[in-house]
C-alpha cells in the first residue's frame, strides 16, 4: 500500500494521483509553512487527513484544529506575526464566523505571510448555502487565487505563499468542492527540508498593529497599496492565461472549474472562441483584459455563482471605451448551482446558438427512481433521541435544529428540527421563537462540537435574559459529520491528550441548574424527561448522550472487541405495524410489496436500539442461521 505521509515528505520529485486537498499539503511542505490551523468542514477535512498522514515527529509544521474558524484565523495570524508562514483553512461558511478577524488582516503587516484557504461549495453539496466568498476578498482588499485542478492548487499555493511572505500580507486561495476532491496525476518538485528558525520575531516596529481611530487610515492606505501591487502582478501572472483559437469575434473570460466545464463543452464546437482563464480572480489584470476585450466583438463572462467578474469587466470596458458586447448572467438560474459541463454547454447554446453541435437528447422518458437523501446511520443515537423526543411533543410545538449529523432529523419520518440557520444558532433562534409565546413549546437541538464552536453565547444569552425553552444537546463525543475530529470535551486534540472540558461542567459553571442527562438509547426515559422539562418554566437542558456509532463500531471492529448482535423480525409475531421500518426508520429495515419486513444484514450493526420500538415485540436478536 502506498504511504501518503511518506510521499508528502519525500525529498525527490515524483508524480502521483492525488486530490486537490492532498496536492495542497505537499505545496505547504515545500513552501516552508510553519503553522497551519483549521476547523473541520467539507470540502476541506481531507487537508487535515493528509497532514495527519505525516508522522508527528517528521511533520514540518505545527497543525491544530481550533475551536472555530475565527479562533483558527487568529492563531494563524499571531504565529505569522512571529515570522512563521501561516495557513488557515476552512469551509465556505466558516469565513462568516472568521469574518471579524479576517477583515482586519489586510491592515496588518503580517511579517511571516499568511495564506487563507477557503473551501467554497458551489452546488451546496455539504453546506447550508453556496455563498461566493470572492465578495469577502473585495471587502478585505485581499488577492484571490482560484485553481481549477489539483495541479493548479499545488502550483498556485506555492505562488500564493511566496507572494504572501514577500508582501507581508494575507493571500486567499479559493478552492471549490470539485477542486478539493478532484483527482489527477500531479508532478511534484523535490523538497529541500530546511532547519526551522523558531525565534519569535514579533516587533511593534513592523506595525502599527493597533487600528484605533485615526491610526486606521495609514493602515488602510497600506492595504490598498498592496492590492495595487497585486494588480500589477496580475497582468504578468503566469496563472492568467489566454488560450487562442484565432477567433476575432468571440472570447470567453472565465475562472476555476467553470473553465474546465467550458473546455469540455467546446469539444462540441466548430469555431472555438478564444478563452481568457483567470487564475488570479482578484484584483483583475486590467491590461490583459483590455487587450482581450479589444480583440473580440463578443465577450462571454462565464463565472460560477455571482456576477463579480462580470461587473468589474463591464466597468473596465466602460472606463476604457471598449465596445465589445458583453454577456454574463442572463437569468436567476445562472446564479444558482455548480457550472457543470452540461450546464455550460446549455449556456453556450443560449449565448451563441450556432456554436455547439447538437448533443444526443434522451431517447425516451426516464423511469422514476426514489430519491436517496443522506440519513442517520444504523445505530445512531440521534435516531433514538428524535424518536423519543417526538413522542414527548405536542402538535404545534416548535423544534429548532443546528449544524451537524443531527440536522438530518428534519427528514421524515422524524421531522425534528424545523428551522436551521447556521453553526450554533439554535438556542438563540429558539429563544426568539419562545418570546411572547405561551402556547407552543420550543425545543432546540445542538451537537457537542458545535456547542464549543459557536453554541455557548446563545446559551449564556438564554440564561442572562431568562429565556423559556428546552435545549437538547445531542452529545456523540466527536465532530461526526466532517469525519470524527476531536473537540474540547473529548480529552484529545489533533496532537495528543489534553484537558477535557466536560460539557456539563461548562453548563453548570454558567449557572444552569436545570440539567438532565441520559443515554439516548433509553428512549422511554428520554420521552418522560422531555415531557417533564417542557412542563417547567425557564431554560432547561437535556444532554442526550450516545457515542457516534459509525466511529465507535469502526474502532471496536479494528480492536476486535465489537459485540453487535444483529436483529431479525419474527414473522409470526410481526403484526405489520411497521414502527421499525417507517417510524423508527432504521435503514436496516426493508419492506416488501406485501408489507413483510426484514432486516438487511449488510446494514444492521447489531446495536439493538430498535428492540424497544416494536409494539408487538417481534424484533429479536438473531440466532445463527435464523431467519433474518
Amino acid at each position, binding site marked *: *500500500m*502506498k504511504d501518503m505521509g511518506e510521499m508528502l515528505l519525500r525529498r525527490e520529485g515524483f508524480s502521483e*494521483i492525488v486530490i486537490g486537498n492532498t496536492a495542497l499539503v505537499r505545496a505547504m511542505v515545500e513552501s516552508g509553512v510553519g503553522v497551519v490551523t483549521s476547523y473541520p468542514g*467539507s*470540502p476541506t477535512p481531507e487537508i487535515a487527513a493528509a497532514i495527519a498522514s505525516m508522522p508527528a515527529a517528521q511533520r514540518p509544521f505545527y497543525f491544530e484544529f481550533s475551536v472555530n474558524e475565527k479562533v483558527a484565523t487568529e492563531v494563524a495570524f499571531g504565529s505569522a506575526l512571529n515570522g512563521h508562514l501561516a495557513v488557515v483553512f476552512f469551509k465556505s461558511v466558516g469565513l462568516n464566523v472568521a469574518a471579524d478577524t479576517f477583515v482586519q488582516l489586510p491592515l496588518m503587516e503580517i511579517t511571516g505571510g499568511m495564506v487563507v484557504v477557503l473551501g467554497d461549495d458551489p452546488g451546496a*453539496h*455539504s453546506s447550508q448555502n453556496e455563498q461566493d466568498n470572492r465578495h469577502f476578498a473585495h471587502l478585505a482588499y485581499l488577492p484571490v487565487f482560484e485553481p481549477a*485542478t489539483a495541479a493548479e492548487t499545488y502550483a498556485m499555493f506555492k505562488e500564493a505563499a511566496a507572494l504572501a511572505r514577500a508582501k507581508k500580507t494575507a493571500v486567499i486561495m479559493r478552492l471549490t*468542492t*470539485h477542486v478539493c*476532491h*478532484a*483527482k*489527477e*496525476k500531479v508532478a511534484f518538485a523535490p523538497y529541500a527540508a530546511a532547519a526551522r528558525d523558531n525565534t519569535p520575531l514579533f516587533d511593534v516596529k513592523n506595525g502599527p498593529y493597533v487600528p484605533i481611530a485615526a491610526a486606521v487610515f495609514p493602515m488602510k492606505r497600506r492595504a490598498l497599496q498592496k492590492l495595487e501591487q497585486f494588480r500589477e502582478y496580475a497582468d504578468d501572472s503566469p496563472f492568467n492565461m489566454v488560450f487562442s483559437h484565432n477567433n476575432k469575434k468571440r472570447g470567453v473570460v472565465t475562472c476555476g472549474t467553470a*473553465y*474546465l*466545464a467550458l*473546455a*469540455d*463543452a467546446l*469539444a462540441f464546437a466548430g469555431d472555438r472562441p478564444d478563452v481568457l482563464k483567470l487564475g488570479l480572480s482578484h484584483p483583475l489584470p486590467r491590461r490583459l483584459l483590455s487587450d482581450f476585450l479589444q480583440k473580440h466583438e463578443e465577450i462571454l463572462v462565464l463565472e460560477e455563482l455571482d456576477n463579480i467578474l462580470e461587473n468589474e469587466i463591464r466597468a473596465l470596458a466602460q472606463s476604457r471605451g471598449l465596445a465589445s458586447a458583453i454577456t454574463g448572467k442572463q437569468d436567476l438560474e445562472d446564479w444558482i448551482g455548480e457550472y*457543470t*459541463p*452540461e450546464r455550460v*454547454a446549455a449556456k453556450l447554446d443560449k449565448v451563441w446558438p450556432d456554436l455547439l453541435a447538437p*448533443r*444526443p437528447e434522451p*431517447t*425516451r422518458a426516464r*423511469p*422514476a*427512481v*426514489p*430519491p*436517496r*437523501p*443522506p*440519513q*442517520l*446511520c444504523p445505530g445512531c443515537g440521534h435516531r433514538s433521541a428524535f424518536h423519543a423526543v417526538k413522542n414527548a411533543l405536542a402538535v404545534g410545538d416548535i423544534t429548532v435544529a443546528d449544524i451537524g*449529523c443531527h440536522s*438530518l432529523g428534519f427528514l*421524515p*419520518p422524524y421531522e425534528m428540527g424545523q428551522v436551521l440557520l447556521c453553526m450554533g444558532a439554535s438556542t438563540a433562534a429558539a429563544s426568539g421563537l419562545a418570546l411572547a409565546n405561551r402556547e407552543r413549546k420550543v425545543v432546540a437541538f445542538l451537537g457537542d462540537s458545535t456547542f464549543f464552536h459557536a453554541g455557548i453565547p446563545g446559551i449564556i444569552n438564554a440564561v442572562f435574559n431568562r429565556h423559556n425553552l428546552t435545549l437538547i444537546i445531542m452529545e456523540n463525543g466527536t465532530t461526526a*459529520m*466532517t469525519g470524527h475530529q476531536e473537540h474540547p470535551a473529548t480529552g484529545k486534540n489533533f496532537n495528543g491528550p489534553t484537558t477535557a472540558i466536560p460539557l456539563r461542567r461548562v453548563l453548570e459553571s454558567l449557572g444552569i441548574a436545570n440539567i438532565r442527562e441520559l443515554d439516548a438509547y433509553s428512549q422511554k426515559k428520554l420521552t418522560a424527561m422531555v415531557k417533564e422539562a417542557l412542563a417547567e418554566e425557564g431554560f432547561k437542558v437535556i444532554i442526550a448522550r450516545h457515542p457516534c456509532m459509525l466511529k465507535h463500531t469502526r474502532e471496536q471492529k479494528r480492536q476486535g472487541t465489537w459485540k453487535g448482535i444483529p436483529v431479525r423480525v419474527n414473522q409470526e409475531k410481526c403484526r405489520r405495524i*411497521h414502527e421499525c*421500518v*417507517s417510524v423508527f*426508520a432504521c*435503514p436496516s*429495515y*426493508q*419492506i416488501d*410489496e406485501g408489507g413483510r419486513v426484514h432486516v*438487511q*444484514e*449488510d*446494514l444492521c450493526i447489531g446495536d439493538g436500539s430498535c428492540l424497544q420500538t416494536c409494539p408487538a415485540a417481534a424484533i429479536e436478536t438473531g440466532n445463527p442461521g435464523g431467519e433474518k
Partner: protein
Amino acid sequence: MKQEKFDIFVIGVGGQGIGLLSETLIRAADYAGKRVRGVDTHGLAQRGGMVASHVRIGANAHSPLVMAGQAEMVVALERHEALRGMNLFLKDGGTLVYYDAVWQPLNVRLKKEAAVTAASISAECRARDIREVRVFQTGLADPRMQNVAVLAEICRLNLIPGLEAGHVEAALNDLLAGPVLEKNLALFRKIVQA
C-alpha cells in the same frame, strides 16, 4: 481521428465503498498508460445518501465531471442507484455494470414510493440498447467486497478498453495492505479466472 474517450459514472450508497472502487479504476487506468481524472463525493452524502464518482479516461477530458448523458459506462453498487446512474449519465448503447444489492431508499421504507426491480432495469437496458451486466455473489465474507466483485467482472468481460486484470491488481496494491488486500485479491482472481 476521433480522440479516445471513456467516461465512467460510478454510483452507490454512502458506506458501500464507492471511493475505493473509483480510486482503483483511476489508478488502474493510469497503470494502463492512460490519462485519467475524476472526482468522488465527500461530506454530507456519505451518511447513507447517494454517492457518486466520476472517472474520465482520455487525453481530452478537462472537467473531473462526466457530462450528463455522455458516459460510456455506469458502474453501480446498488439496484436503485444503477437505474439512477443510467438515467442521469449513461449514453444509449453504453454499458451498465451493477452489483444487485438492495438498500431501500427512505421513501420506499416509508411506503411512499415503489422499489426499483431488477426486471425494470433489464427492460430499460433493452429499450436503450444498453449492455447490462448484473453482478451478484453469494457468500461474500464482507459486503464491502462487493466493489471488488464488480471490478473483477469488468476485467473478466474486458469492459474498459485497454484495462487488464494486472492493472487493477497493481491499483489494489497501492490502496490496500495485509489480510484485507489478500482477501480482495483472492476474490478478484477467482472471478476473473472463472
